[in-house]
């Protein structure tokens, strides 16, 4: 199934972020959080629901997210994604984020479990303005317990684009990385996963970046231009998420706080 979804968030009256456009179709549903908690939160939270979180072979999902100047979006998944085998075609998920000045996106999907015989591709392409902020987490599980991993290839590319009055400034790549699962040589190699089953990464383009910090099996490293990347490997998803939380707490920009403490409470 092919699905194309669009989500546009803008800063509305009173400084609160509002959903301006929301189009989604099976197998992807986008559901804005409602209720009193949502009403009190100046950021918009949208859940990705449905088969988007359980891709089948042949499913081809694209999501374009635009966040206007000064607006804030939290995009989450509600269930562990399981890339399942099906027909002979791979499943794919392509996310394109475009952020205006002073806009922010936190992309916090649940872990992707790449089951045996699955073949799944993902792309996250984020275009930032010089003052936008991005937090993007990815937790990959190489197969369910006791089974080998299916095939997975995911690319993250984060670019900083000049504002309209800086037309002579080139586009700067902040991060470009492809992760691959399902190759036994790589998985066993102590240069790649060192036989650990779960890989967690978290991109943090979020204010001040400090010096690199390391734990036993995680690192928080400043990128070349701006932003940081957290990398963690562990035998299970829970330990991986704990390592990511420990690492993000060591990031100076994040420690200063988001504009919305409610968002932080939600995330932890």
């Amino acid at each position, binding site marked *: 199934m092919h699905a194309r979804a669009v989500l546009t968030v803008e800063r509305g009256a009173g400084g609160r972020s509002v959903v301006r456009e929301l189009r989604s179709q099976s197998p992807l549903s986008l559901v804005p959080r409602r209720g009193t908690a949502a009403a009190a939160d100046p950021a918009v939270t949208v859940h990705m629901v449905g088969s988007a979180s359980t891709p089948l072979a042949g499913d081809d999902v694209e999501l374009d997210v635009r966040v206007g100047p000064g607006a804030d979006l939290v995009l989450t998944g509600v269930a562990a994604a399981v890339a399942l085998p099906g027909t002979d075609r791979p499943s794919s998920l392509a996310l394109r984020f475009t952020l205006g000045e002073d806009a922010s996106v936190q992309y916090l999907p649940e872990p992707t479990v790449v089951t045996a015989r699955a073949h799944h591709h993902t792309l996250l392409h984020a275009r930032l303005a010089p003052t936008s902020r991005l937090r993007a987490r990815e937790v990959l599980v190489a197969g369910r317990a006791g089974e080998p991993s299916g095939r997975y290839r995911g*690319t993250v*590319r984060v670019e900083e684009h000049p504002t309209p009055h800086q037309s002579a400034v*080139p586009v*700067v*790549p*902040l*991060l*470009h*990385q*492809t*992760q*691959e699962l399902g190759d036994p*040589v*790589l998985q*066993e*190699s*102590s*240069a*790649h*996963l*060192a036989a*650990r089953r779960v*890989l967690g*990464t978290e991109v943090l383009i979020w204010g001040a970046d400090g*010096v*690199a*910090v*390391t734990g036993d*099996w*995680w*690192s928080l*490293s*400043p*990128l*070349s*231009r701006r932003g940081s*990347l957290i*990398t*963690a*490997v562990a035998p299970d998803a829970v330990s991986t998420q704990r390592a990511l939380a420990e690492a993000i707490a060591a990031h100076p920009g994040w420690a200063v706080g988001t504009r919305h403490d409610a968002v932080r409470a939600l995330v932890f």
Partner: protein
Amino acid sequence: MPGLASLVLADARFPGGGHVHSGGLEEAVSRGLVSDVASLEGFLRGRLRTAGLVAAAFAAASAAVSACRPSSGPSPSRPSSSCDGAAATRARFAELDAELEARTPSAAAREASRAQGRGTLRAVRAAWPSPVLDDLAAVHPRPHHPLLIGAACGVAGEPPGEAARCVAYLAVSGPASAAVRLLGLDPFAVNAVLVGLGPALETVVAEAVSAADGPPPDLPAPGAPVLDLMAQAHVDQHRGRLRLFAS
């Protein structure tokens, strides 16, 4: 066929300071991840397919830029009609530098690459003097090692594939020799492992050369998670303590 330049640059006796880098092997040994010839082979195969491929692709792309500069050498491998002067060459090196930085999220790995590039630059300038090296050094005084090796091969008239092979080989030969020194492994067995990587190395070279023909943003970017986190840990945990290798 490889020319003299790529042979000299891949030689362990080349005076570029490469002998102080183990490519993460020392940290892998101290964590007990590499302890014998079999685990060394696994490490090398993973390193070749990840960090090795990124380095090879950027070396190939840099060689193509270098060979394109009209004053670059006696036998440019591409017609000069499609080539440009200093400003355009610098802009193309700057784009490669930015894309390589984006593909090297570990600050420790970026520093190791620039440290090796700086040491190699002096030896390369003396051996293959060319304005192309000034163009590369104008982008950053400590050029990334793969970009410099590529530029030197291009200046010497070697095609991008030779630059890619040289860099892919260095990505595994350094750690292999470090393993002999750190673990006292049988040098004949380690050398045989290195030779056994031949087919995997040729696959990497072919992929690097093919990617180098396309736009720099499309160059390969395979991550090496444990290599990245070990690179930083090596710097942090061994600071002020005795260690044999800088990386």
